[in-house]
């Protein structure tokens, strides 16, 4: 169910963005769009099917611990 919704949203956004980019021959922009959408889609999909995805909060917390340890 959620996966269907995800694909639907992706499809709508693609239909909204891609045609005008192709028409204007903005290939770099198109590539950037596809990369970021692909990243978001993959991460969301992995999370939905239960694969452990990276969590920036753990990076932040690790960094915080490191900074605190610097000050003793």
């Amino acid at each position, binding site marked *: 169910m959620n996966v269907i919704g995800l694909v639907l949203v992706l499809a709508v956004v693609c239909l909204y963005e891609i045609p005008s980019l192709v028409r204007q021959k903005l290939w770099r*922009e198109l590539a950037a769009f596809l990369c*970021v959408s692909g990243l978001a889609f993959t991460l969301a999909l992995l999370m939905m099917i239960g694969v452990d995805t990276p969590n920036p909060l753990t990076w932040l917390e690790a960094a915080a611990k490191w900074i605190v340890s610097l000050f003793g």
Partner: protein
Amino acid sequence: MTISHKTTARQLGSILLLLRVSPMTLTMPMMIGMPSSQGLWIAAIAATVISVPLVAWMAALCRAEGLDDVIGISRRLLGTIVGSAVGWLFVLYWLILAAFELRSVSEAYVTGVMTATPIMAFMVLTALVSAGIARRGIRLIAMMCELIALLILVSVLLTMVMPLDMIQLRNLLPVLPEGLRPLASPTVTAVSLFLDMVVLMMIAPSMNSGRGLIRGTIWSVLVSGAMLASLLAAMNAVFGPLSTALELPAFILTQVISIGAAVERLEVITMASWTFGVGLALATILWAAAVASARLLNLTCYEPLVYPLGGLTVFLAIRMWPDVGNFDRSVTGISGGLVTSLFILAALAILTVARWLKRRTDGGSGPTGGDRRARNVAAIVAMGLIISLSTGCWSRKEIETLGFVVATGIDTSLGATHWDGTGSDGDPGKLMQCTVQVMKPNSITSGERGPSLERPFWGVAVTGRTMMECVRKLSEVSPRVLYWPHNRWLVIGEEYAKGGVGKMLDFWERNQETRLRTSVGVVAGGRAWDLFQAEFELERTPSEGGRKVAINVSQKLSTVVLATINDFVVAMASEGIDPIAVRAEIIPYTLPYEVTGDVVREEVKATARLTGASVFRGDKLVGWLDGREARGYNWVVGKVKSALLVVDAPGQSVELDPMASLIGLEIIRAKGTFKPKISDDGRDIKMGVQISAEASIADAQPYVDSYTAADLWTFLERQLEEAIKSEAMASIRKAQELQADVFGFGREVYRTNPRVWKQVKDQWYEIFAGLEPEIEVSVNIVRSGLKVRSVKVSEMGGAGEGR
């Protein structure tokens, strides 16, 4: 509205102000986990003072670099590779910030209002709408922010001002109970939130002038700092020690607003701030992330990146925080906030140093304006979208499906009631009985046939182990979904109250539908169930009748002590004060005559009287104040609104007729305060109570002449002073006998002399019991009604005894 091509100072200020809205009106991270809340407003001011130069630094750097954005500046000053790395870090930071905003607004909706809705629905909708706005550029965001910021300013102001009757400024004392040290963490948290304004370094290229950039920035820091400090003060003044335990303090603050007992449910105000303010803040951050990444990738336009980044934001918002506890912790103290603020400050410092090193060789390049003309239509469409988001409700509640609970009673269990279905397993001693009165909507409406003859309410009782279990079990017998915001009364049976009420009160603070303004009462010598059989002849529902009786008696006699759940819990949670609540008693009542004619009504078995107060120690009922003692309490704490005291008339008039010797004095206004008098060594504590009142002569049995007899006034004043003093003394003596400090004498010691309090608090009840009150009363009799002197009964000579 005219569309200027450039962003004005006011628009920039509005954008940055809205960035501060979510941490203020939602989680209020400064308050979470703090030991005390009194000094937090000082931390807010300190954070503002610290933040002004920091944020001005950002603006000044952009201005000095010819209004370039942070990506351009760092690439030029640090070289393409290092500069791009810094730029990507900024993009990551904005993504995390966007995820935070998204999660916080969705979490607020799910926690506070629509608990049944999946949080995903809010996230996706909010992200879509915000991305839609972001895609249209900073011009549209700027214009919308300018409109919305005013609305939010007004709504936050209303939030602070409207709970006026619940604000107790003395809750702000002592200002710094644990010294300055505990303020460090909230100050750091607040500063880190102010640093979110770094997004101004992306907006700079669209500014109309460098001066506007600086002005808008400083304006927003000062205004949001003032808002933050006053909001913190208001929350603390209303909720006292409770405020650091609340999940959505501003929301709960709007929940307690009640204007003339009619206008309620004003939390809509806060919800508007959430939707508009946080939605636009999210749009700003998404826009910044998209523009920054487009610049880093050397793209000609950023628009295609907005929706994909929005999707990434939704992912992060779900992935980063498994639960709310996690979420709350990540914004406070030594955590994510620290890292991001250090990152921003480090980036600023590096850029400034690089600029200083490079200044000789390089001049700044001109601003790059990538603006598009935004259309009003787009603004209106986007606004419409946001509004539709706030009204289209998933877990909506239609009025026809609701049963309005108007009063709730709590008793110890007598075993399962005949309503009970599913057996409550477990120790019968741990069971409680919960009685509710639900309005019958069909029988309130008075159509053409006149008011219905049915009883307009339905009483039902269930037993359960916890409050919420009882509430849920009611759904086994109630065809309508019970709806709690209109619950006026929480009535507790004497037996249950003696066993402690703290365990049951948690539900009332935690639940979304219950209100902290609900009145608390205890049934003297009876059960709540029995009280709920009582009715008031003049009102159709006992709950409404009880509410009006409470108002009446407090305004005419002051012989009852009124308390809301908030008052009760604050007293329970504060050091040096014990809770007090209404005392209700059941009066068996039968009509002495046959009811005939049109009045067909189920027999009224009993009615109720509200008088006196129930005295708690901790959360357990320990005794009662009678009506006179309750008024004594009201004198001491300054809650007497009006009263009638009967005193003896001057001697000479009494001699004339001993059977007509009384004068009734009506209190027009009164004040009462108390202040501890502590000897220098802190050992000897006395309590100085000062009461002042104005009164007028309300009725006089003997002949009195207020025009000629000047000493009459002073005589009556002395009499009244004595009467008030004895009532106040009686209440203090009673509380001392019960060893329950309902006045908050201990709290006053704590507020005025926190150090002395630390020494005495362990033996406070003993000290309290031996405390010698010094009561000073001053009374002014200012009026004598519509008469200057009494009318003499004319005496004619002749037969009879004569005098």
